């Protein structure tokens, strides 16, 4: 009696052994092709709008504005990467942003002054408000995660409900009123009202550049210590050089945006001083952009270097495998949504500070912008794939398109038609690219 029918006849070993392909200049640099593609797309967008606006698009002033307009969506997009990587979705971020913003606005203008007795302008007000916002954001996020992970309600439904609930909780908290003006310190997180100035911008830029270079060199040393091939030193140096140049170049551009003389005069007048002859001040790096950089670094470290990040990607790639490897995927879902909620609260600080008040419609449609940024940035809705820098670049590309078209004078309906089309086209290009390189 033969049982040969159960003997598998697949013989993958007959395939020719893969030979090492000849290493081109680009491949020796070991750069991420997808990243290069996105940077290329971003540069094209910038150059095209710069031509269409007769050079007004790539001015220090507009680059400054673009940066501060991107921050809020970009911060949330980094969290959305983890959500989508674990095969979930969060439709409630715009509404949750409104609730967090409402809590923070009410804390600093009503609750703390009226109920606790801290007078307006008290230095603890903005910080207590921010802590309250973060707790509320992360708490609501964790609650969403619990509904999704432990009660197994699909995230789409939980957060669709959340979209309606939190938008209107915000309305209730503020009785639908616009709350403002917000505390001056709080407002400094919004962008134009809080910048480092030229000198500190250079210092922060230099520290950042040194830190980036050291991090790359130490990763190289660690690899070499375990006997792995590292790229040639000239290639490493070239990549480090490009990154350092990019950081310092960005600082230089922001420092080139000078504070208008009447604003300088107003500031000096407020302190009872005369403006010195020939005095020039620059805005430099906005605090909100620093906040985004901090979030980006932290989220990238979480994604690449921590167990939490490893489990997030493993769960996205194969939830059963993660579960069988001892990962508590339910608790992981709670953590991921709580992180999203915390990031939404940080975005709420930036968004309301930029507007200098909390308005009822703050964050409206942000969920779509955030999801679009993550997806344009290469996050796959099927799970398991996505990068933090991709999502931030995605947010930047979307914001550039939007404000570029506004500057050119494209009709409002046409603007949204273009953005929608770009979203779909970006995903198509990504699918084709993945098919080419043989990924999933």
């Amino acid at each position, binding site marked *: *009696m033969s*049982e040969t029918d*159960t*003997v*598998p*006849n*697949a*013989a*993958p*070993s007959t*395939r020719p052994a893969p030979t090492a392909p000849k290493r081109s200049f680009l491949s020796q640099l070991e750069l991420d092709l997808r990243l290069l593609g996105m940077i290329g797309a971003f540069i094209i967008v910038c150059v095209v709008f710069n031509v269409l606006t007769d050079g007004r698009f790539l001015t220090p002033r507009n680059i400054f504005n673009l940066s501060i307009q991107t921050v809020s969506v970009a911060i949330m997009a980094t969290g959305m990467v983890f959500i989508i990587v674990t095969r979930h979705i969060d439709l409630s971020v715009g509404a949750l942003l409104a609730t967090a913003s409402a809590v923070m606005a009410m804390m600093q203008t009503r609750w703390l002054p009226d109920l606790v007795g801290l007078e307006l302008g008290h230095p603890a007000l903005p910080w207590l408000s921010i802590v309250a916002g973060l707790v509320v954001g992360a708490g609501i996020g964790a609650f969403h995660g619990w509904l999704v992970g432990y009660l197994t309600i699909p995230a789409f439904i939980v957060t669709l409900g959340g979209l309606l609930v939190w938008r209107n909780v915000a309305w209730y908290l503020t009785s639908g009123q616009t709350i403002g003006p917000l505390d001056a310190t709080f407002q400094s997180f919004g962008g134009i009202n809080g910048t480092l100035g030229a000198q500190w911008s250079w210092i922060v830029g230099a520290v950042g550049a040194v830190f980036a270079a050291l991090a790359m060199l130490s990763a190289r040393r*660690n*690899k070499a*210590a*375990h*006997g*792995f091939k590292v790229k040639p030193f000239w290639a490493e140096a070239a990549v480090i050089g490009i990154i350092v140049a990019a950081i310092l170049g960005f600082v230089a551009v922001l420092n080139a945006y000078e504070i208008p003389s009447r604003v300088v005069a107003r500031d000096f007048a407020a302190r009872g001083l005369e403006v010195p002859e020939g005095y020039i001040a620059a805005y430099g790096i906005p605090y909100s952009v620093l906040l985004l950089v901090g979030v980006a670094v932290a989220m990238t*470290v979480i994604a*690449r*270097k*921590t*167990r939490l*990040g*490893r*489990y997030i*990607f*493993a*769960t*996205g*790639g*194969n939830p*059963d*495998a*993660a*579960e*069988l*490897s*001892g*990962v508590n995927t339910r608790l992981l879902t709670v953590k991921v949504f709580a992180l999203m909620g915390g990031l939404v609260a940080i975005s709420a600080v930036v968004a309301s500070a930029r507007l200098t008040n909390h308005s009822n419609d703050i964050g409206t449609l942000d969920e779509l912008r955030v999801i679009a940024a993550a997806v344009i940035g290469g996050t796959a809705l099927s799970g*398991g*794939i996505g990068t933090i820098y991709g999502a931030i670049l995605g947010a930047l590309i979307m914001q550039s398109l939007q404000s570029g078209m506004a500057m050119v004078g494209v009709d409002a309906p046409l603007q949204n038609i273009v953005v929608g089309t770009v979203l779909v086209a970006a995903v198509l290009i990504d699918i084709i690219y993945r098919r080419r390189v*043989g*990924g*999933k």
Partner: protein
Amino acid sequence: MTMQTDPRANGAKPLVELKDIRIAFGGVQAVDGVSLDLYPGEVVGLLGHNGAGKSTLIKILSGAYKADSGEIWINGEKATINSPRDARRYNIETIYQTLALADNLDASSNLFLGRELTTRLGFVDDARQEAETRKIMARLNPNFRKLSEPVSALSGGQRQSVAIARAVYFNARILIMDEPTAALGVHETAMVADLIKELKAQGLGIFLISHDTREMMDLCDRVSVMKNGQLIGTERVEDVTEDDILSMIIMGKNPKREAA
């Protein structure tokens, strides 16, 4: 010769004892009062049709399912296994039929999934993980080179090597292999067979699930046959013929016992 190598003959304690295990899924009794044991240095084969309850039984031992009733004893002590993490604490490692690999991660991330090596600061030490992966792969599958590519880019045999490496690396004492050769070519199947013999010689206890009766006769010390969630019988391979086993699988009867 066989009597001397029979681990049960020299009074060894059983490594694993499953006692009267039962589990039901929505009215279907998937495992119905099954008792099995496994000794150090022994390979016990589990046979049966699809849906006979083999994989379910094994998943109870590996912590993926929790039994409705019954007891698990490890090394003569009652064990509580509620999760895959618990099972790993008892040095039980499982190679699943589906391999349970995260396709988007590379081989070393999969090998160390849930048990990452970390630096002093608590970050995942990718370089060390990769170096360790290279070491164990050199032993298991010397042709394995694609260390830093996602496992979705690997062939069936290479993926299998990753799954096996994961089970072997952490000094398993009890190994569960669910259809370890189902997706493999002839050459790789032979490699797995050699590995099973080597691990057995090192004193591991192995539960092996397969549909290939001949392979089972070759590799196992004892075979247990299941049908409809019940254990039909456990026999030493030298006491039965392949036909006996087939009739146990198909008829659900133990011809040897009925003849006696």
